[in-house]
C-alpha cells in the first residue's frame, strides 16, 4: 500500500463551543418572540373592529416617560454587566439598582395607566375587542417586565450581600440579554398600540 503518504489532516485545534446559557436564552427569546408575534398580529387584526367604544384615540395617552425609562434601563444593565466583568461589584450593584428603579417606574406607570382606564373610562377586558387585545398584549409584556425585575432584583440583593463575583458575569449577561429582549418587545408594542393603533 503505497498510499501511506501522510495525509495533511489538521489536528483538532482549539475546540470552542458557544456558551450554553446564551444559546439557551437565545432559544427562549425565539420562542417568546413567536408568542408576541401572535398577540401583535391579533392586535393589528382587530384595530378598529370594536363594535362599541371606547376607542384607543379617546382613552390612550402616549407613555413617553415610561418608555424612556424602560429603554434607558437597557443601557444601565449593559453597564452592570461590564462592571461585573471587570470585577467592580459595587459599581455593578449601583447599575443594577438603577436598572431595577427604571423598570419599576415603567411598571408603576403601566399600573397607573390601567387604573385610569379601568376606573375613569370603564375599559376592561370585557368591554370590547380593543380592551381584550390591549390588556392582553400590554399585560403579556408587563408580565415579562415583572419577571425580568424579579431576576434583576434578586441579583441586586445578592450583590449587596456580597455573594456576586466576577465568575457570575456570564449569568448576569444571560439575564441582561433577556432584559434587552423585553425592551425590544416594548418598542414593537409601543409602535403597534400607541402609534399605529391610535
Amino acid at each position, binding site marked *: 500500500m503505497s498510499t501511506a503518504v501522510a495525509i495533511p489532516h489538521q489536528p483538532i485545534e482549539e475546540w470552542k463551543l458557544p456558551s450554553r446559557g446564551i444559546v439557551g436564552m437565545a*432559544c427562549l427569546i425565539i420562542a417568546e418572540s413567536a408568542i408576541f408575534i401572535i398577540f401583535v398580529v391579533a392586535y393589528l387584526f382587530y384595530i378598529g373592529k370594536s363594535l362599541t367604544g371606547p376607542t384607543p384615540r379617546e382613552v390612550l395617552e402616549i407613555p413617553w416617560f415610561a418608555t424612556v425609562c424602560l429603554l434607558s434601563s437597557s443601557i444601565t444593565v449593559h453597564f452592570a454587566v461590564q462592571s461585573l466583568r471587570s470585577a467592580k461589584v459595587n459599581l455593578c450593584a449601583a447599575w443594577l439598582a438603577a436598572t431595577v428603579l427604571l423598570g419599576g417606574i415603567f411598571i408603576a406607570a403601566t399600573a397607573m395607566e390601567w387604573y385610569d382606564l379601568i376606573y375613569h373610562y370603564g375599559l376592561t377586558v*370585557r368591554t370590547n375587542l380593543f380592551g381584550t387585545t390591549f390588556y*392582553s398584549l400590554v399585560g403579556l409584556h408587563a408580565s415579562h417586565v415583572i419577571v425580568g425585575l424579579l431576576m434583576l432584583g434578586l441579583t441586586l440583593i445578592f450583590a449587596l450581600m456580597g455573594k456576586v463575583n466576577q465568575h457570575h458575569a456570564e449569568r448576569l449577561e444571560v439575564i441582561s440579554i433577556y432584559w434587552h429582549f423585553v425592551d425590544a418587545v416594548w418598542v414593537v408594542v409601543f409602535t403597534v398600540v400607541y402609534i399605529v393603533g391610535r
Partner: protein
Amino acid sequence: MATQTQVTVNPALERGWLYHVQDWVTTVDHKKIGLMYIAYALIFLVIAGVEAILMRIQLLVPNNNFVSPEVFNRLFTMHGTTMVFFVGMPILFGFGNYLVPLMIGARDMAFPRLNAFSFWVSAFGGLLLYFSYFAGSGLYGAGTAPDVGWFAYAPLTARVFSPGHSTDYWTLSILISGIGNIGTALNIVATTLCMRCPGMKLSRMPLLVWLYLVVSGLVFVTISPLTAAQIMLLIDRYLGGHFFDTQAGGSAVLWMHFFWIFGHPEVYILVLPAFAFANEIIPVFSRKAVFGYPAMVAASIGIGFISLSVWAHHMFTVGMGPGPNAFFTFSTMVISVPTGIKIFNWLATLWGGNIHFTTAMKFAIGFLFQFLVAGLTGIMLSVSPFDWQLAGSYFLVAHFHYVLVGAILFMIFSAFYYWYPKITGRMLSEKLGSWHFWLFLIGFHLTFDFMHIPGILGMPRRIYTYEADRGWAIWNMIVSSGAFFQAVATLIFVWNLVASYFKGEKAGPDPWDAWTLEWSTSSPPPSYNFATIPTVESRRPLWDRKHPEEPDAHYE
C-alpha cells in the same frame, strides 16, 4: 463535595421499590428522562389506541349504538389530542433525549434539571387531560372530557356553546405540556450547539442530530403560537374577552389561522424525527454511508422553513379567496421538493447496498413506501379545488393517518428494534418482530388503504353513525377489521418489549456493526455515557475506529 441539596440518596436505604421510585423521580440523567418520556408515551399510545378501537367498533356496521354520540365526540377529541400531544411529541422527544447526547459524545444534556422539569410538566399535562374523565359528573357520566375536536374551532369553544370545564381541560393540559415541549427543544438546541465532543463539527454530526436540531427550532416557532392562542382562549373563557367571540366582532377564522400556524408545522415536528431514524437505520442495514449528506441537511432545513408557510391549506374550504388559495397550493406543492430529495437519497443509499432485512429495516422499507403514498395523496389534497371536494371527509383522515401511522409509527417501531439493544443490553426477538411487522403491515393497509374509499364516496369525518343505504358499510367493515390486526400486532410488540427485557439475547455494545458514537459505549450505557470523551474525525467515527486502514476522514 456536593452540598446544599435536600435530596441525598441514603445508602442505608434498602434498594426496594421506594429506592427505585426515588431514583427515577429525582433523576436528571438524560437517558432515564428519555426512557420516562418513551414509557409515558407508550402508555398513552395504548390508551389512545383503545379509543380508536372503540370508534372503529362503533363504525363497524351502520346504525350502530355501541357508544353514545356524546361519548363518540369525546373519543375522537381525546384520541387526536392524545396521539399528537401525549404520544407523538413525547416519544420523539424521548428518543431525542436518549440519543442526541450519546451521538454527539456528550455526558448529559446542556440543562439536566430543566430536562427533568420539562418531562414532568408534560407528563402532568397528560394526566390533567385524562383527569377530565373523573371530574365533573365522574366516570359514570364520563366526566367532562373535551369533545370539541382536536383543533377546537371557535365559536364551539366559547362559554355559551361549551359550558362547564371540558374545553378548559383541553386548553390547560396542552398549555402546560407546551411549556415542557419548549423546554426540551431549548435543551436539545443548546446541547447540540454547546456540548459536542472535540471534532464533532456541525458538518460531521449524525443526520439524526441535525434533524432534531431542525425539529427543536420548529418547536419554538410553532408551539409558541399555540401557547399564545391557548392564552387567548383562556382570556375569552375566564375573563370574558372577545378574541374569538363573533358576537362582539371577534373572528373565528383567526383561531383557525393561529391553530394551523401551529398545526401544520406540528406535522413536520412529528415526521422529521421519523426521517431522523430512517437516516440512521437505512444506511446501517444497507452497509453504506448515507447518500448525499449535505443534500439531506439542506433538505431538512428547507422543509423546516417551507413548513412555516403552508398552514392555510387546512383552510381552503373557509373561502380565503383566489390569492391565498393559490399561494398555499403552491407552497404546499413546493414542500414536496425537499421531501422528494430525501426519498431519492434514501433510495440511493439502498441502491447497490448489501441490504440486511432485520425487523428494523423491514419497518424502514415500509416507511419509505407508505410515506411516498401519503405524500402523493398530500399533493392531491394540496390542489385547492380537489380539497374543496374532499376536505373534512374520510379521504383526508386516511391521508393524514397514512403519514402518522404509515410513516411515523412505522419508523418509531423501527427505532425500537434498532435501539432497544442499546437501551436494555438485550436484543428484541426477531421472530416476534417479524410477526409484529407483517400483521401490522396487513392491518395498516386494510385500514388506511380502504379508508380512502368511503371518503371519496362522501363519508364525512367525525360522523357518529351512518345509514345502511349509503354504500359505505362494506368499506367501514374492512377498515375496522384492519384495526384489530393492528391491535394484535401492537400487543405482540408490547409482549416482545417485556419478554426480551428478561430473556432476550445479550446484545453487546454494537450488535448492528453501526457507525455512530452511541454504539461505542456499553449497553446499556453507564450514567456518564463515555469514560473518556471521544474525538471524532469524520461522519462515521466508529467506521474510522473499525477500519483504521481506510478511515472516512480521508474522503470527506
